[in-house]
C-alpha cells in the first residue's frame, strides 16, 4: 500500500505529460516523414524528403548552424556571467541576497515583447548605444546591432541567465561556508581552492544550469523572432515560417524533429560528461 500510493499520485501529471508532450512529439515525428504539399509524385509515407530538402537548402543549413552557434554562445556567456554572480549573491547578507535575487529574476516578469522592445531602444540604429557612440565621436556611422546574431545572443542571455544563476545558487546553498577556508588552511592557494574544491562542489549546479540554458536557447522562439528579424532566421523562426506562412507542416515537423534530436543529444551528452567529469574529480552525483 505504502509503495503504491506514490505511483498513484503521479497519475495526473503522467496523463498531462502523455497527452501534451509525448503524443504531440510522436505526432511531429510522424508528420515529418509524411509527404508534404510540395511533394514529388510517387513519394509515399514514410519519406526522408522533408529532412533531405532542409539539408539541401543553404538557408536552412545556415539557420541550423546559426541556432547551434547562438546557443553555444549564450550558454558560455551565461556560465561566464552567472557563475561569479551566483557566488557574489550567495556571499551577501540576507537582505541584499533577496534584493539581488529579485533583480536577477526580473526578466522572467517581463513579456517577450516588452523585453524585445527594450533591447530595440538600447541596440537600435538610433538606440542609446549608437547615440552615445556617435555623439562622443567614437564612430561616424551607427553600428548595426539590432536584427543581428549579436542582438539575439544578448536577448536570450538576458532571459536565460536567471536559470544559470538559480541552478548554481541552489548547489552553493548546500555547501559548507567554510569549505574554502578549510582548503586554504590545508595549504591551497585561491586557484587551487577554486579548481579543486569550489568548482567540483558546484559542478552539479553548473551542469544543470548548462542543460537548462542550452536547451532553452535552441528552442527559443519569441526572442530571436523579435530581435533577429527576417535577416537572421533560426530553426525556430524558420519552423514558424513553414508552419504559418507557407503552410508546409511536413517540413515544419521535420525542423521540429531536428530540434528534438538536438535537445536529446545534448541531454545524453550532458549526462555522459556529468558522470565522467565528476568521476575524474573524485566525485559522484
Amino acid at each position: 500500500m505504502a509503495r503504491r500510493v506514490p505511483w498513484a499520485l503521479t497519475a495526473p501529471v503522467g496523463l498531462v505529460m502523455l497527452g501534451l508532450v509525448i503524443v504531440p512529439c510522436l505526432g511531429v515525428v510522424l508528420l515529418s516523414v509524411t509527404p508534404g504539399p510540395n511533394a514529388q509524385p510517387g513519394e509515399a509515407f514514410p519519406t526522408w524528403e522533408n529532412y533531405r530538402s532542409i539539408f539541401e537548402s543553404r538557408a536552412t543549413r545556415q539557420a541550423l548552424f546559426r541556432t547551434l552557434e547562438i546557443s553555444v554562445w549564450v550558454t558560455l556567456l551565461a556560465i561566464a556571467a552567472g557563475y561569479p554572480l551566483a557566488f557574489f549573491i550567495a556571499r551577501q547578507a540576507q537582505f541584499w541576497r533577496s534584493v539581488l535575487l529579485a533583480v536577477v529574476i526580473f526578466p522572467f516578469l517581463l513579456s517577450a515583447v516588452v523585453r524585445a522592445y527594450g533591447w530595440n531602444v538600447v541596440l537600435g540604429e538610433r538606440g542609446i548605444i549608437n547615440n552615445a557612440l556617435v555623439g562622443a565621436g567614437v564612430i561616424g556611422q551607427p553600428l548595426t546591432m539590432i536584427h543581428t546574431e549579436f542582438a539575439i545572443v544578448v536577448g536570450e542571455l538576458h532571459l536565460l541567465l536567471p536559470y544559470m544563476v538559480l541552478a548554481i545558487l541552489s548547489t552553493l546553498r548546500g555547501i559548507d561556508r567554510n569549505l574554502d577556508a578549510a582548503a586554504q588552511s590545508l595549504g591551497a592557494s585561491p586557484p587551487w581552492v577554486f579548481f579543486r574544491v569550489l568548482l567540483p562542489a558546484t559542478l552539479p549546479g553548473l551542469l544543470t544550469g548548462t542543460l537548462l540554458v542550452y536547451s532553452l536557447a535552441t528552442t527559443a522562439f519569441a526572442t530571436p523572432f523579435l530581435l533577429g528579424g527576417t535577416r537572421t532566421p533560426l530553426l525556430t523562426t524558420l519552423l514558424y515560417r513553414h508552419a504559418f506562412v507557407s503552410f508546409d507542416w511536413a517540413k515544419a515537423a521535420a525542423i521540429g524533429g531536428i530540434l528534438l534530436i538536438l535537445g536529446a543529444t545534448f541531454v545524453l551528452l550532458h549526462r555522459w560528461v556529468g558522470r565522467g567529469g565528476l568521476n575524474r574529480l573524485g566525485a559522484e552525483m
Partner: protein
Amino acid sequence: MSEIQIVGLAKRFADVWAVRDASFAVDAGAFVTLLGPSGCGKTTTLRLIAGFETPDRGDILLGGRRINEVPPWRRGLGVVFQSYALFPFMTVYNNVAFGLRRQGLGEAAISTRVGAALDLVNLPGLERRYPRQLSGGQQQRVALARALVIEPRVLLLDEPLSNLDAKLRAEMRDELKRIQRETGVTTVLVTHDQDEALTLSNTIVVMRDGAIVATGSPRAIWNRPGKRFVADFLGVDNLLPARRADGGRIRFEGGGPALEVEGGGAATGEGRIVVGIRARDIELGPTPAGAPVQNEIDGNVRESIYRGSFFTCRVTTDAGPLSVTTPLDLAPGAAVRLRLPRERIMLLEDDAAGPG
C-alpha cells in the same frame, strides 16, 4: 617560548568591534581555550589567527615572527570547524590527503600518513566512504585527522564539539585530550562550554564583547573568577551586591550579618562589590537552638527542586535569596541555618555593564 603571541589585536565589522585590544600568548605544546558566550569575539579571534580575517590593529606572532600579512595557505596551521567543512565530493581518504597533496608528497608517503592520522583519531577502515555516509562523530574525527595530518604548528579548533549530542560530546572531549597529549600539538580551542574549557585547557581566556576579561589556569578561573561576568558565566549560582564593612568583613546590600572573607577575591578599586558563592559550597542544616555565629544566616526554604542525587533549595534569608544544594529533602517553609565558609566566598568586581 610562546608559539603564538597576540598583541593588541582588534577587528571591526562595519561599526562593531568584534575584537578589541586582545592580548594573550600560547606556549608551545599548550592548550589554550577562548571561552565566552556567542558574539564575544572568540571565533573572530581564531579566524584572525588562521588568517581568514585581517586585523585592523595589533599583531599576530607565530614562533616570534609577525604573520599579519602571511596568507592562510602559508601559515601551516590546522583548523577544525564547527561544521567540519569536509569536502563533500571526496572520500575520507582524499579529504585527509588534501593537505599532503598540496605539499607535493608521493602517493606512498601520503598513504602511510593518512593511515597513521586515521589511526590516531580511531577511525580506520572508512577511507573509501564519503562524508555524508558518516555519523557526526565520525565526520568530526575525519576533520581532526585532516587538520593533524599536515603536522601543523598550531591546531585551531572552532567549537568542534558543539554539533554533537551530550554523550558523544563528552566522549570526543576525552579523545581530544588524548590526541593533544599524544601529538603534543599547540592548540587553541574556541568554546562556550565551561566543562570543555576546564577539562581540556592549560589556560582559559574568557572573552566578552570582543575584550578579554580574564586569563588564567582552569583552577584559578574556577576559584577566583575576579569579575561578576566571569563568575556568572562559570555558573556561580549566588551573586549578591555587597559593600565592604569594618574589620575586613563585607555586608550584603540586602541586609543580614557581616561576613568574614579571605583572599577569595581579587576585587579592588572603587567599583561596587559583588559577592559570589556556589550553591554547593554553602552548608545547610536545620536551625539549631541559639543565635547564628560568624558567617551563618538563618532562612526559610521557599522551594526545593529534585535533581537526582541532590536537591537544589531556594532559601529566603535576610541577605536575599540564596541557592543551596543539599542531600536533604526539605519541605517549603522549613527553617534552615546556612553557613557560608569564608574561604568559599568570592569578592567580585561588578562589571555588569560590560566594557566600553
